[in-house]
């Protein structure tokens, strides 16, 4: 299945703005799509913009964290950007569900983070 969430390549970075009501199936399909694009393009960075998501539950959080981990195994650095305040508050209230993934306030800051020398 193809997730229908667009993944855009800008130089060495893949950018995806995740939209709308993300179902489990779409989230899983998106993970596969993104990793395939990573393999085909050889991109070194991934920016996941979640500013359009008003709900990130534990399942979606898990898919995001795993996607970043998988991308890292493939050699790319992932930054999650644009999390809404109410989403951040909900995730922290629930527990530590989005640890181990780099974050930035917006796409600009995310690009700046990707441009830093790799640790």
């Amino acid at each position, binding site marked *: 299945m193809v997730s229908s969430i667009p993944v855009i390549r800008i130089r060495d970075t893949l950018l995806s703005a995740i939209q709308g*009501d*993300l*179902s*489990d*199936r779409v989230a899983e399909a998106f993970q596969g799509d993104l990793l395939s694009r990573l393999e085909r393009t050889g991109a070194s960075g991934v920016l996941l913009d979640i500013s359009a998501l*008003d*709900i*990130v*539950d*534990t*399942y979606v*959080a*898990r898919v995001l964290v795993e996607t970043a981990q998988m991308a890292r195994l493939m050699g790319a650095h992932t930054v999650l950007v644009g999390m*809404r*305040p*109410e*989403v951040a*508050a*909900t995730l922290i*209230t*629930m*527990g530590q*569900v989005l640890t181990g993934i780099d974050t930035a306030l917006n796409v600009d800051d995310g690009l700046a983070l990707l441009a830093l020398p790799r640790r």
Partner: protein
Amino acid sequence: MIVLETCALPIDSEDDVVRVRTRVRDLAQRLGFDAFAVAAISTAASELTRNAWVHGHGGTATVEEVEEGGRHGVRLQFHDAGPGIADLPRVLKGGFSTRRSLGLGLSGTRRLVDDFEIESQCGVGTHIVVAKWARFGART
């Protein structure tokens, strides 16, 4: 507590996770919940619907507008006839991870809502009731 409106939604596919939480979000917004409260109750709906689908093999979600002592709230009831939860205290403590979750589904959900009740019997099923209340004067 007065039930002003009630709507029973079946949980018999994965798509119902989105369907139920959308309904809950719309109700919470209509009741004047702020963005944080809307996200909290919608996320709780998402977790509990998925729980009923994945672990309870489906069931029913009842979305209700309730009133008590002049304040309005959203009450959600989830029924499933699944295997039940064997070790409820451990599950509620969190860290009971399965393939489909981070193990924070129930324990995390409990922290998002104002009221939380759970009854589970092995071989019979699980019934969960949660409620979130609007702040006083929230509704215009």
